[in-house]
């Protein structure tokens, strides 16, 4: 029942896993040299949440630049969601991006291609 709070830095995004609200929010750039140590906590939190009960989980993403290690790690998180969705769980991803930077939208769209759960890509002015 614990929240996950990771304060962002230049290379690490702000992460907030709100257990009560069923929301995992991530904002900012992600290019840590060792993505494993950052994302391991996030993945474990998501696994614990999905195993705990049957409430919905929504990812509210405002991620910008992701290095390839972060891309891999995000894929791992989305894979968890896909498995949960296959089991009937309510999951969703909402990825907001600055409409001036279409590259982020393209990255999100490439992720979306491989998943069937609700994945919304939303440009923001």
């Amino acid at each position: 029942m614990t929240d996950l709070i990771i304060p962002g830095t230049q290379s690490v995004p702000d992460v907030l896993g709100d257990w009560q609200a069923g929301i995992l929010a991530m904002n900012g750039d992600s290019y840590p040299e060792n993505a494993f140590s950052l994302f391991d906590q996030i993945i474990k939190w998501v696994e614990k949440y999905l195993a705990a009960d049957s409430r919905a989980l929504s990812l509210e993403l405002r991620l910008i630049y992701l290095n390839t290690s972060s891309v891999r790690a995000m894929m791992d998180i989305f894979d968890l969601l896909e498995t949960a969705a296959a089991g009937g769980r309510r999951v969703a991803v909402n990825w907001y991006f600055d409409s001036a930077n279409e590259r982020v939208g393209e990255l999100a769209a490439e992720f979306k291609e491989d998943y069937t759960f609700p994945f919304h890509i939303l440009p923001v002015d």
Partner: protein
Amino acid sequence: MGTMDATDLYRLRDSFSREGILLCFNGPISRSIIEEIGEALKNYLKAERTQPSAAMDIFGAYIEMSQNIRHYTTRQNYDDRDASAIVVVGREPDGAYRVSAGNLVEIADGMALVERIRQLALLDKAALKAAYKEQLRAPRPASSPCGAGLGLLDIARKARTPLSATLIQVAEGRAFFSLCAVI
């Protein structure tokens, strides 16, 4: 330090200007150096009013190249001297950005890299995307045995021209590998 005096420094600066070099680092490459130079690069791109998507591509190429070197030298357990690298970001007269990096490698790894880059150069957009997705799903330890799988593909997809790679033997079993991308 060598015997470089003010004239030499002036000539060096002049040659950097002619080459269009904006940022250059030479030495043991640490996580903080990568971030600091990254910040300087971000600021430069912002001051030049670069399109956000182009700026992200250029920054991404720089990060992937530098972090690839870090991962490799860590895996190889190189000491500070051998873990030394050179990273250069420059600007072409036509406005394109050139991101280059060079570091010491085991000869076999270097040759594998050069060959991989030669093959990547032939791929069209769709093939590069497919290769990227395949690499994304590849099991972790097996992927990028020679040190540059997904990162390399990422740079290749963003580059304006095929990536350039060179390999120069410098010692027994060791070579200097350099990679250059025009974004």
